[in-house]
């Protein structure tokens, strides 16, 4: 039999001025199950809490109801009070007689009557409460970072510096990501490699960081604090432990015609190669599609010349399984495919290039050694036209509806760099809007216009066509309300960016939600911007939304802070108000798993006794209490009512409904 104590708070005059608190306390004395009822000026005060503790002990209370302010205010306080007196903290219910009663009603009789009903409702509920124990799950003190671009590198370094082990899984042969391909970075124009490569080296040298390059995540099991991840280490045909990065193999390899993807396919590379000079790890990889030995069985020249004996044509994909407490997703982006935009002639003219290709053409380590030469004939372009918003802000279905965010700034950067290096070059930029919200960003853009004389044209390009070897760029000049055609030597398209496609697979593995544009969804757009709704999964960089390097780095560090906060704990306290299936009633119909946003529900075949010595094997739902967030979506979906929610059980809510409606 439940022994309930009721405590009515005056909250000074906040409640007492409109609710006759003494009357409420008095009425409750005769409620069935209530063995103690009192009122006090401030229940949340030291003395008020003392009163509660004493009553719990003296009257052997099994549950208490506090009629006070909103549970959002002091539920936690009173739970602690109860716990201190030896009562399970979940045997506490709050009747909100301040925000929902005294503050909004003026008539004392009316407000008192309502307060009585609200307290009764809380009593009805607390009678059905059951002691709940916050579960505990251990935390594996190691983090996984998926993606080795600047986001992943920064997150890994920050986590490792706090003393936790970190693995970086990178699908390419080297870490560095998109930033490694860039020439200069806005708004300060530092050389990208000069600021990135030291960080890459730090990663390689950090004793807490393990770089798993040329690897992909294959399978993820478990939950926050306890992920178990299977990682595929793709065969690179070179023994990572032996290769010294001497590059002799690259020199000797007879198959040199492979497109160099690091240089955006603008030049070629050998079948065995190190992606770029500062690659980490500085280890070669063989492209099996291109290698003569792997394709025909004949050749083997690299093996002959490798002094370290690192070449291994027999290598196969291998798998490793590791445990992690937290996972950071930093899978990055790629420029969109421009096939749908034939008006810009990208596929038909070699001299129509994307901005990322221009980065490589201007980079000292690029295909032209940093001299800006146009791809078609290797001449210096004299007139260069930039087109912004190619595929961004496009709701027609060809492109992306969002703003890619980085293009305005990098276009200004390109225009400026070209005008500085080649002052005789004419540079035009077609823009719809120039968006430069960021520290020193607008100043940067204005410098391109004012100091470097870049010609910004408000308007969009309608078509680019080739006439006698010249690229004719026809577009609007909206300010002058005219249509202009610019005879150009090089056209640069600011192609929209989109999440790296592999993010879809990663999201599925992690049960992390993804939006219609394939960006990973954050837990709360404003207040939890680096957390995925899936507990223990964090988001850094463009996989969550377009952003530039400074923003990416900040987000990565924010992720690291969250991860460190998680890994610093030895055990995770789990919310005990989670879903719980009654196996004897579960049909195993999968409807609950279909609505679970967290992937907390799995199924297993269990044996049940039928009586008479017979047994039956049935598929039943299992809820992982560490993953369940307690929303209750599953409880309503369950046709048999086998699924219930602790702390908000069907019976509890029904009893509240009854208490309110009973006239």
């Amino acid at each position, binding site marked *: 039999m439940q022994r309930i104590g009721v405590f009515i708070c005056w909250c000074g005059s906040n409640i007492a001025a409109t609710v006759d608190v003494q009357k409420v306390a008095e009425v409750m004395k005769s409620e069935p199950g209530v063995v103690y009822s009192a009122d006090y000026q401030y229940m949340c005060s030291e003395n008020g809490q003392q009163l509660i503790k004493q009553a719990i002990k003296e009257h052997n209370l099994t549950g208490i109801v506090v009629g006070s302010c909103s549970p959002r205010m002091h539920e936690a306080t009173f739970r602690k009070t109860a716990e201190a007196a030896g009562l399970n903290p979940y045997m506490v219910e709050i009747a909100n007689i301040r925000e929902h009663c005294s503050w909004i009603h003026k008539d004392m009789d009316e407000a008192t009557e309502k307060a009585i009903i609200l307290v009764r409702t809380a009593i009805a509920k607390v009678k059905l409460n059951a002691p709940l124990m916050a579960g505990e799950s251990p935390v594996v003190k190691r983090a996984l970072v998926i993606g080795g671009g600047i986001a992943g590198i920064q997150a890994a370094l920050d986590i490792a510096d706090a003393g936790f082990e970190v693995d970086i899984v990178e699908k390419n042969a080297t870490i560095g990501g998109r930033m490694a391909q860039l020439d200069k970075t806005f708004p300060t124009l530092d050389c990208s490699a000069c600021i990135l490569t030291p960080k890459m080296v730090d990663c390689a040298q950090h004793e807490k960081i393990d770089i798993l390059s040329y690897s992909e995540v294959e399978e993820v099991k478990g939950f926050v604090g306890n992920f178990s991840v299977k990682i595929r280490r793709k065969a690179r045909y070179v023994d990572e432990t032996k290769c010294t990065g001497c590059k002799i193999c690259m020199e000797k390899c007879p198959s040199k015609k492979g497109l160099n993807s690091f240089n955006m396919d603008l030049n070629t590379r050998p079948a065995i190669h190190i992606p770029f000079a500062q690659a980490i790890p500085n280890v070669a990889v063989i492209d099996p599609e291109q290698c003569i030995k792997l394709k025909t069985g004949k050749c083997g020249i690299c093996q002959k010349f490798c002094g370290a004996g690192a070449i291994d044509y027999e290598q196969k994909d291998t798998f490793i399984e590791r445990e992690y407490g937290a996972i950071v997703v930093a899978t990055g982006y790629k420029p969109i495919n421009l096939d749908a935009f034939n008006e810009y002639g990208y596929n038909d003219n070699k001299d129509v290039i994307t901005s990322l290709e221009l980065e490589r053409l201007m980079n000292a380590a690029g295909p032209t050694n940093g001299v800006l030469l146009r791809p078609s004939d290797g001449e210096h372009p004299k007139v260069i036209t930039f087109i912004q918003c190619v595929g961004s802000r496009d709701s027609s279905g060809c492109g992306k509806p969002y703003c890619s965010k980085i293009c305005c700034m990098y276009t200004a950067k390109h225009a400026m760099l070209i005008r500085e290096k080649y002052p005789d070059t004419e540079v035009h930029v077609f823009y719809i809007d120039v968006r430069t919200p960021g520290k020193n960003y607008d100043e940067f853009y204005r410098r391109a216009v004012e100091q470097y004389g870049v010609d910004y044209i408000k308007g969009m390009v309608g078509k680019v066509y080739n006439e006698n070897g010249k690229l004719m760029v026809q577009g609007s000049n909206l300010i002058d309300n005219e249509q202009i055609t610019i005879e150009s030597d090089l056209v640069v398209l600011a192609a929209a960016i989109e999440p790296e496609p592999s993010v879809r697979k990663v999201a599925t593995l992690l049960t992390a939600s993804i939006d219609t544009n394939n960006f990973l969804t954050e837990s709360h757009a404003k207040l939890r911007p680096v957390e995925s709704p899936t507990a223990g999964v964090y988001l850094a960089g463009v996989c969550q939304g377009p952003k530039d390097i400074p923003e990416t780095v900040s987000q990565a560090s924010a992720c690291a802070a969250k991860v460190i906060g998680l890994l610093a704990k030895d055990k995770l306290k789990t919310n005990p108000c989670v879903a719980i299936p*009654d196996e*004897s*009633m*579960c*049909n*195993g*119909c*999968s*409807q609950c798993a*279909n*609505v679970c946003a967290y992937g907390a529900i799995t*199924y297993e075949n269990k044996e049940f006794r039928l009586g008479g010595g017979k047994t*039956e*094997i*049935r*598929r039943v739902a299992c809820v992982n209490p560490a993953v369940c967030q307690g929303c209750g979506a599953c409880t309503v*979906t369950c*046709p*048999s*009512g*086998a699924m*219930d929610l602790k702390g908000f*059980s*069907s*019976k509890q*809510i*029904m*009893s509240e409904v*009854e208490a309110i409606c009973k006239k």
Partner: protein
Amino acid sequence: MKDVEMKMKERAKQLLESGEVARVVGWKKGDFCYDPSPATFETVEELDNFVYDYFCGANLSKYLIQISKKEGKTAVFLKPCDTYSFNQLVKEHRINRENVYVIAVECMAKFDIEKIKEKGVSQITGVEVKDKDVKVSSLYGETTLYKPEILLTKCETCQKTHQVKDEEIILHERPERDVDRFAEVKKLEAMTEDERFAFWKEQLSKCIRCNACRNVCPACSCVKCVFDNPASGVAAKANDSEFEEKLFHVIRAFHVAGRCTDCGECSRVCPQHIPLHLLNRKFIKDIDGLYGEFQAGEEAEGKTPLTSYTEGDAEPNDVLNGEAK
């Protein structure tokens, strides 16, 4: 119809004799010509009682929940409408698909004995069908009835086709039909609230809570029904307020929403002739209209309309005020 029955019997015999299946689920003769009942046949001898005729309206899918757990394969004869329930149950992991061999059988609509009786014909001994004429013989002689008037309610608007089959026994082509299964629902929708309430009050007042609708429904196949679950707060035994009694049909209809294949068994078995299918069809019609056409049981996997969503779904208030979409 006799030829179809022959073929089915023959095939059942083959399957049992060859040991390909351990049992066959079909219909067996009843005491009268109009009350065949679902049955399991495990030996060739038992097949003597096998029957398939115009009174085999029962949906066999639900029986497979238990039977498909047994050892050995089970062959089952499924009419078009039954296959939807079958798929839905496979989707909900209730039927072990690997253990079942589905033989799709033709259906030329089934008869409602009650409707025949209403025509004043009793003590029926047999029926013979020629086009739309049904010659009914009884102890008192012969009467010819018009076929569309004596069909089971579920057959009146049926346009279903087999959704699953391992083989088929289809000897006759079914005539194409163009009927609106929502016609009755629309009629009710067009009424005023008062009229609708009067209609349902009259209908539901007839309910004797015999649970036949629940027991026959392939979607109502819970290991333990919510009405028998004391934790649900609706079970009558745990509650003195008779909540369950009073709102049984609302809860039942909601529970099968998005899963009901419109097989019509609920109305067929109701001893009080409550048009229960009109409750389910309202949900089906709303789902089709608000979230796109959906036929439960068309697929054996995937989500139902109530376990999926789109960001632009209609607002409940707009739906109520007829402003959705």
